[in-house]
């Protein structure tokens, strides 16, 4: 990282970062602000900084106490957590073996994984439901977990494969000469070095699962098993979804993510930085 910067460079950096921040954050700002204004004021001319503020937080009150928000939140969290764990384990195994061993039909395997993305999820979800029903998993979050893994594992394999490919083999080979098996060499040498990639895959898997609507909608029926996106969509589908409540619902889905993310971002950034130290 260069530490010396010209004045022009510094200004340029400042402008660039400011623009990036505004671009990324403004719609979210507007969403949160709109949810905090009294319903009636949403019909008058909007101002950048709201003139009024709904002290009662009516929109939130309605959403939190009159819907299944908490249950849906826990469901989404549980599903996403398991998806991350399973995807990581399977992606790491698959991509590592492919990058280090001579595997027949490697292109077919890797290419085959991409088929998960080639079809509209709705067309895949219903046959998946039929398969799960045969295993008595019809109205079950396990089905959702498995379906999400079919989305996250191909991504994980592709990303990690890239990471492992770029990693020279001599480090592991040195460890193996010392008597480690391939597997322990992996844990001792490769894993720490590929942490940025692994953290990245973990985050993407979590998000793919957290924000999925189609699979969660098709594979689960009971109200108590619904996830957050499905819950929000049914608010949308009802006749009286008004902007205030919609914005509140959107904020409620986003808020836990923001909180979790800001708590975990330290680890995420450490993960990214760990690679730099090695360099």
């Amino acid at each position, binding site marked *: 990282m260069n530490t010396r910067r010209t004045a022009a460079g510094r200004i340029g950096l400042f402008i660039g970062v400011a623009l990036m921040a505004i671009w*990324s954050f403004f*719609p979210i700002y507007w969403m949160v602000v709109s949810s905090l204004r009294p319903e009636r004021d949403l019909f008058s001319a909007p101002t950048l900084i709201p003139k009024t503020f709904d002290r009662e937080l009516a929109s939130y009150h309605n959403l939190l106490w009159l819907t299944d928000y908490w249950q849906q939140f826990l469901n989404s969290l549980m599903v996403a957590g398991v998806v991350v764990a399973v995807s990581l384990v399977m992606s790491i195994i698959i991509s590592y073996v492919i990058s280090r061993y*001579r595997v027949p039909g490697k292109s077919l395997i890797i290419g085959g994984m991409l088929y998960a993305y080639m079809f509209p999820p709705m067309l895949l979800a219903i046959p998946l439901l039929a398969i799960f029903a045969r295993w008595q998993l019809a109205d079950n979050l396990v089905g959702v977990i498995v379906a999400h893994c079919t989305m996250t594992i191909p991504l994980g394999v592709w*990303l990690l494969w890239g990471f492992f490919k770029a990693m020279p083999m001599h480090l592991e080979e040195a460890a193996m000469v010392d008597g480690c098996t391939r597997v322990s060499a992996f844990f001792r040498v490769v894993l720490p070095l590929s942490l940025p990639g692994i953290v990245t895959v973990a985050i993407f898997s979590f998000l793919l699962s957290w924000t999925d609507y189609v699979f969660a909608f098709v594979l689960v029926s009971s109200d108590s098993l619904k996830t*957050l996106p499905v819950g929000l969509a049914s608010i949308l589908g009802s006749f009286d979804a008004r902007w205030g409540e919609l914005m509140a619902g959107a904020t409620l889905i986003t808020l836990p993510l923001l909180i979790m993310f800001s708590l975990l971002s330290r680890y995420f950034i450490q993960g990214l930085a760990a*690679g730099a130290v090695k360099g």
Partner: protein
Amino acid sequence: MQSFKTASDRRLLVVFVVCVGATLVLILGPALYAIQLSLYEAKTFVSPRTWVGLDNYARIIVDPAFWQALGTGLVFSISAIVLQVVLGIAFALLLNQAFPGRALMRGVAILPYLLPTVVIAITAQWLLDGSLGLWTHWAQDIGFGRPHWFENPVSAMTIVVLASVWTWTPFVAVCFLAALQTVPASLYEAARVDGAGAIMRFFHITLPMVAPMLLVVILLRSIWMFNKFDIVWLLTKGGPLNATEHLPILAYRKAFLQFDLGGGATVATLSFMLLSILLAIYFHFVPLDEKEARA
């Protein structure tokens, strides 16, 4: 590249096969089912099916709606990908610099990617609401009158592209940023000592080192953008007058709304075949086994 010699290796092989097998079965099973559906005429999933062979294909290939949807899809995905990659690289480069508050900025830059598509669609519609939207009012204040954001085909497509770019640029940025971390600082130092400016360093050191990751990202984003259904559907439902209807929307409408499940499956299969061709071209230029050839 080695072969599976030791016992530990073979145990690993077993686990590998199980993982790959499970994943492929769950992915390919439904995919094959969808392809099979395209050979039948069926109104819905629960209606009786009649075998028609390739009749659906004959019918759809001569339908101008199919080709228009294909063109729309290409316009949408190519514009979205180009913008995502360019912006993503720019963001990653910015976030790679040291400046106060960088950790916070990294969080902020990722925010769009955290949101479920439905949230993004709602917020976009709220900002662009014909009477109450903030941006509608700004456009009026600037003097554009009240824009018909979603009634103009070009503007509708622009909105859909920009919404996609806003949402998924962080994906590119994060991958690129992670890849940047693997470039040894020593290389930059050496180049700077040799007198190379920032731009030269980017094109001669950064890009080549992160090229593999970048190519993978572009590949994945291309497939995803081509098949992106939610954001377009939620924003415009393919309107106005089919201006933003691409192949996934066409497939969905046929299969789930127009009682033409076979036709929808056919559109999906044709789309998938097209993507496979593009994939094959990709693999021709970026072979999977390059490392093996060298080793």
